[in-house]
């Protein structure tokens, strides 16, 4: 029986495992596949994007596990809790830190991301942490249990994890200072109008958000705990916790001495194969040799991890499929403001020379929409929507059909996905669009 071993029980690894099991339920007379999933982090698959809700008291740990414990046995997915220390591809064997080893016929590396540190002085002090793993969550619970033991925290960097961490700490009335290099929140990804709106929203939640500021070093007290941070402008901010949210990097240090070729991530081709036969990599830890379209070579996103798992399962089960993602999409939530994006809407610094944008913002300062389109052909390229839910299926169709920006704005109502009875803003958006371009539609 072919033995598929998956390192990592996050969304990429688990999706691959589920689909392989579905595809390989053997016809009579054949043997199926044995599937083993190894993780050092947690007993069962959990939703990493839901870590914050455990700290905020919305859910218990078991509530963020999408499958009940019986699911694994029923689907014959063997779970092993261990840390893979070395990968011996010659003998197709993995060696565990705890001792022991396991052999595989096919190996899938799906070890995800880890916090990216930038060699700051003091980054190893107690109280300095990221927020990626289950252990990070447990550390935060220890480091910042309440505002008596931790009156103030400083978060370094904006982005999705930074704002989540700020939201978490604010639910326990811990003062939060957020240092970001740019002059508005997440401007390396979002157009300025949106970034500025989010900056105001984050501040309205009592976060001391400081633009254009950078960390110089982290200061220690006598017993090796964080005492304060020093900014590059020389200000000392006392705090008990320093959240490092300046980005993540592939979690692949265990491959150092293996024959598997790596760069920042595990290098893979479009079939998600590494340079070594029968070894694959998917999810946050995989790095494409050549970027796909406008996508970065390493995509650290829930959805892409899942899609790689879906594609690789086909290949493993004898129907070779390339990882060939469709239209880009993503989502997030910043305190109370939901965000969805379909297609490509670039920030100022990454804007393509052919890209033009139409931006609408609601008077409430809680909703805005940015639509990007081709300057010359008027083709609709993508949409960012904040505070208004929209349908993926509709935008997926419009992007495939290469609709014009006029068409999209005129038919925006079709894409609305807000709950029933919610106020609609499509007419307001259309009116502003017409005013801006003085056109009759």
């Amino acid at each position: 029986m072919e033995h598929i071993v998956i390192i990592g029980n996050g969304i990429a690894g688990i999706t691959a495992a589920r689909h392989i099991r579905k595809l390989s339920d053997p016809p009579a007379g054949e043997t199926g596949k044995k599937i083993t999933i190894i993780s050092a982090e947690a007993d069962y698959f959990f939703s990493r994007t839901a870590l914050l809700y455990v700290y905020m008291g919305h859910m218990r740990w078991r509530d963020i596990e999408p499958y009940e414990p019986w699911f694994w046995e029923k689907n014959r997915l063997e779970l092993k809790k261990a840390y893979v220390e070395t990968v011996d591809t010659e003998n197709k064997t993995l060696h565990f830190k705890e001792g022991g080893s396991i052999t595989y016929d096919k190996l899938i590396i799906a070890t995800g991301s880890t916090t990216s540190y930038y060699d700051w002085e003091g980054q190893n002090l107690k109280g300095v942490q990221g927020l990626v793993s289950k252990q990070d969550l447990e550390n935060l619970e220890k480091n910042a249990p309440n505002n008596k033991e931790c009156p103030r925290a400083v978060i370094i960097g904006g982005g999705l994890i930074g704002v989540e961490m700020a939201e978490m700490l604010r639910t326990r009335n811990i003062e939060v200072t957020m240092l970001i290099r740019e002059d508005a929140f997440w401007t390396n990804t979002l157009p300025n109008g949106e970034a500025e709106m989010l900056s105001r929203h984050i501040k309205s939640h009592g976060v001391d958000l400081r633009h254009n500021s950078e960390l110089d070093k982290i200061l220690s007290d006598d017993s090796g705990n964080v005492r304060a941070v020093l900014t590059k402008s020389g200000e000392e901010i006392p705090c008990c916790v320093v959240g490092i949210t300046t980005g993540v990097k592939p979690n692949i240090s265990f491959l150092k001495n293996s024959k598997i070729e790596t760069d920042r991530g595990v290098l893979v081709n479009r079939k998600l194969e590494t340079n070594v036969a029968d070894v694959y990599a998917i999810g946050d830890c995989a790095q494409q040799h050549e970027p796909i379209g406008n996508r970065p070579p390493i995509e650290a996103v829930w959805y892409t991890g899942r899609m790689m798992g879906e594609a690789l399962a086909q290949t493993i089960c004898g129907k070779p499929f390339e990882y060939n993602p469709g239209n880009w999409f993503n989502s997030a939530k910043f305190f109370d403001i939901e965000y969805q994006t379909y297609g490509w809407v670039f920030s100022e610094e990454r804007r393509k020379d052919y890209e033009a944008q139409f931006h609408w913002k609601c008077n409430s300062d809680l909703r805005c929409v940015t639509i990007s389109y081709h300057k010359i052909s008027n083709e609709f390229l993508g949409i960012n929507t904040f505070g208004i839910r929209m349908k993926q299926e509709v935008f997926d169709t419009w992007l495939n059909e290469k609709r014009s920006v006029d068409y999209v704005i005129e038919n925006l109502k079709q894409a609305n996905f807000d709950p029933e009875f919610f106020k609609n803003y499509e007419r307001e958006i259309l009116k502003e669009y017409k005013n801006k371009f003085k056109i009759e539609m």
Partner: protein
Amino acid sequence: MSTVQRNMSLTGEPLKAINPQQKIASAIGLVGLAILFLAFFNLNFPNKALWLSVSLGMVAAGIVWFSVAAYANKHEGIKNDGVYFKSLTSRGFWAWVLGITLTLFYVVLYWFPQYLGLGQDGANNGLVSLFDPLSKLLNGGPASQWFVYGTLYTLAILAFGIKFILKYRHNKYEKLRTYSVMFFQLGFAFLIPELMARLNSDTFSLPYYDLKNIWPLNYYNFEQYRIDSFISAGDIGLELLIFGVASIFIITPILTYKYGKRWYCSWVCGCGGLAETAGDPFRHLSDKRQVAWKVERWVIHSVLVFVVLMTTAVVYSYLGDDSSKYWLTKNTFLISVAVFLTLIFAGTWIFKREELKKDARLGAIGYFIIIISLIGLHYFSGKTLFLFEAETLRKSYGFLIGSIFSGVIGVGFYPIFGNRVWCRFGCPMAAVLGFQQRLFSRFRITTNGGQCISCGNCSTYCEMGIDVRAYAQKGENIVRSSCVGCGVCSAVCPRGVLKLENGPLEKRINSNKILLGNDVDLMNYVNN
């Protein structure tokens, strides 16, 4: 219960205190309650109208002020911070105190009303007598234990309804349906029946009738005393009786086809009204395990079978044999019931069999055979219909289902099992509506492509214990019998994945193996 993992804290309890205003508000509410308690312990208040007003006023003011203090100064949005840290909402000490108190209240209410002060011939004392002035004002007579209960029930829906509206003030769907349950409770369940009672005289008498309370939830609606009363009250009575029959056989199927069972369960129903307002803080306690769903399917449909048998037996017992006196005789009635059930069974079997899981098929066949053979047995061997006397069935149903299940367990255990235990496991009306919703309705919860991140907020806050995430993460729409359409899964979803809507029947479930956003060829290859 010791397995409940309250939080991950190792070094200290996270902050969960209520603010000073909330403390004052709680104190006011508790003083209002204390007045009721003093009355319960037979303290005789001199000016009952005044003290009752003070008491109910303080309870209402306390709840409303508490809610304003809790939510008004916060941003609009989801308010679930600390739900699993608070003792009251995470099966801690205060949850048990509240649960036991409520349970004891129901026990006294149902079986020992004399302790509440219910006296003979209107000479009440204690708690019930405190409500006499309000009762006289509305229906002209002294209060009963049911009047006390109805008043407190309505007060709870109104005051906690305001709390719910403040909590979800960013969500118009939630606000509208809460206004709706508050309106139906105050008007239809409380004021109209009380005022109708005023019209009753020696020559004219209508039964106490909450018009929105439909059989089989209102399991006693077709009992003999009520039918006699309807018929003797002339045209109005007859219209009410016809309305009662039409409610379940005509109005309910039409509205459920168009909107799903939510039109009733979370917009109109009183049980749902209390669950959605006073019970809202406990919604996450419902059991999400698959085994709970299996139990639910058997229990709720068994209750439905029970109420059908019981009602058939009761109606059968008081109908006559002579068709020249009245067209509806014992025989006509029983044959109609048998034909009706056969049609439902055959129709479902022929058109919808593919949508029934194995246990549903077994259950449907099993119960159908049992009912039809019991009716046959009665005809051919003369055995008592359904083997038990109608009165025995009626009493057992009233005791087991009407009192213990819907009251004691349904509400008393809010803080332990969640707020919709009755609606999920017990309510025969929910079973009827759910059957229609699952097989003959436009309602579904639509999943937005591949946007689900499996976070679990939807499942956690589903009061009906539906594992919403299990569908959403497959890109599948949610079409479930038990969904009451409260809309909270959609509200708490951080990524805008879920939407309650009424749409076409085609592609209502729309199951996908590979989700939207991936390779088009792969999606076509696997999904079709």
